């Protein structure tokens, strides 16, 4: 897969088009097994202050060495906070790739487009590979591309909502005009949602809650992997155009009852 249809971000090729998050698993063991089943090669982590009274375990010990760790800036409400978090992560030895999220709104967790663009420009300038999380906004997409973002990652529906491609028409426009890979991130609740995004022409999807909170996260991770592969192959194969009326699949002449 990697050779013939690679997912290329900032010059780096990946075989898998399913990115996964590490949040909300019951245990690090459950997370590790589900990530393996997903086939993901890009895996997100958050960055938080350590509680010195209970330092707990090290999540990186449960992540395969070959996956790219993608630190996010979750918890940041302004561009300055996001830039600070990304700098801290890079200095401490995490990759210089960052999933940029600037989210001031706790109810719907919708990203701030102005602060996101501002942070993206600064981080690109400082040499980061920036993957911004955004509302599906084709105008913002162009601006993020102009400042040098490596991908643009529009949400399908609010984080963790599992509602699928609620903003499909805007995402379709973004697919049409994308100059860097488009990753549909957040809100995908079922493998069929992921397949739909891929059939539409998204370059990849990012899934967390739908896998982590499934009754069987390993099986769900595999289901998402297959759906992403199916959707991608369908897109590459070329879907037929929709039409309003029927078009028979069998011959219209020579039926047995004809005289």
């Amino acid at each position, binding site marked *: 897969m990697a050779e013939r249809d690679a997912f290329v971000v900032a010059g780096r090729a990946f075989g898998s088009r399913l990115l996964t998050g*590490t*949040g909300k698993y019951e245990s690090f063991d459950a997370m590790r097994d589900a990530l393996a089943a997903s086939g993901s090669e890009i895996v997100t982590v958050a*960055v938080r*202050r*350590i509680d*010195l009274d209970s*330092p707990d375990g*090290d999540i990186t010990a449960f992540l395969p060495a070959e996956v790219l760790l993608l630190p996010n800036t979750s918890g940041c409400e302004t561009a300055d906070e996001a830039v600070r978090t990304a700098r*801290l992560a890079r200095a401490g030895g995490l990759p210089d790739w960052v999933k940029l999220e600037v989210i001031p709104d706790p109810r719907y967790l919708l990203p701030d487009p102005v602060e996101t663009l501002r942070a993206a420009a600064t981080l690109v300038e400082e040499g980061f590979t920036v993957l911004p999380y955004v509302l599906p906004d084709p105008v913002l997409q162009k601006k993020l591309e102009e400042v040098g973002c490596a991908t643009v990652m529009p949400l399908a529906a609010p984080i963790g909502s599992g509602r699928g491609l609620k903003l499909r028409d805007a995402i379709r426009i973004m697919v049409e005009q994308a100059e860097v890979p488009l990753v549909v991130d957040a809100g995908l609740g079922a493998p069929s949602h992921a397949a739909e995004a891929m059939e539409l022409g998204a370059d990849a999807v990012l899934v967390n809650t739908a896998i982590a909170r499934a009754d069987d996260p390993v099986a769900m991770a595999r289901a998402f992997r297959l759906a992403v592969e199916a959707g991608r192959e369908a897109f590459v194969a070329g879907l037929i155009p929709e039409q309003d009326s029927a078009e028979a699949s069998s011959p219209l002449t020579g039926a047995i009852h004809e005289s």
Partner: protein
Amino acid sequence: MSLRVVVNGRDQAVESGETLAALLERLGVGPRYALVERNGEPVERRRYEEVRLEDGDRLVVARPVAGG
């Protein structure tokens, strides 16, 4: 001589000349996954062994955790 620094908002006594790496070890935080900001500036991992803490330093110690 004992110095005072602040780690994640909490007062912490450190020995004069103590390195950042030694403090992390003492706090039970493996330097392998600790991310550190000192007085508002991120500290490069390769410098953890050489940075000597000074009286009044304000540290933020973070790490990667589960997230989406």
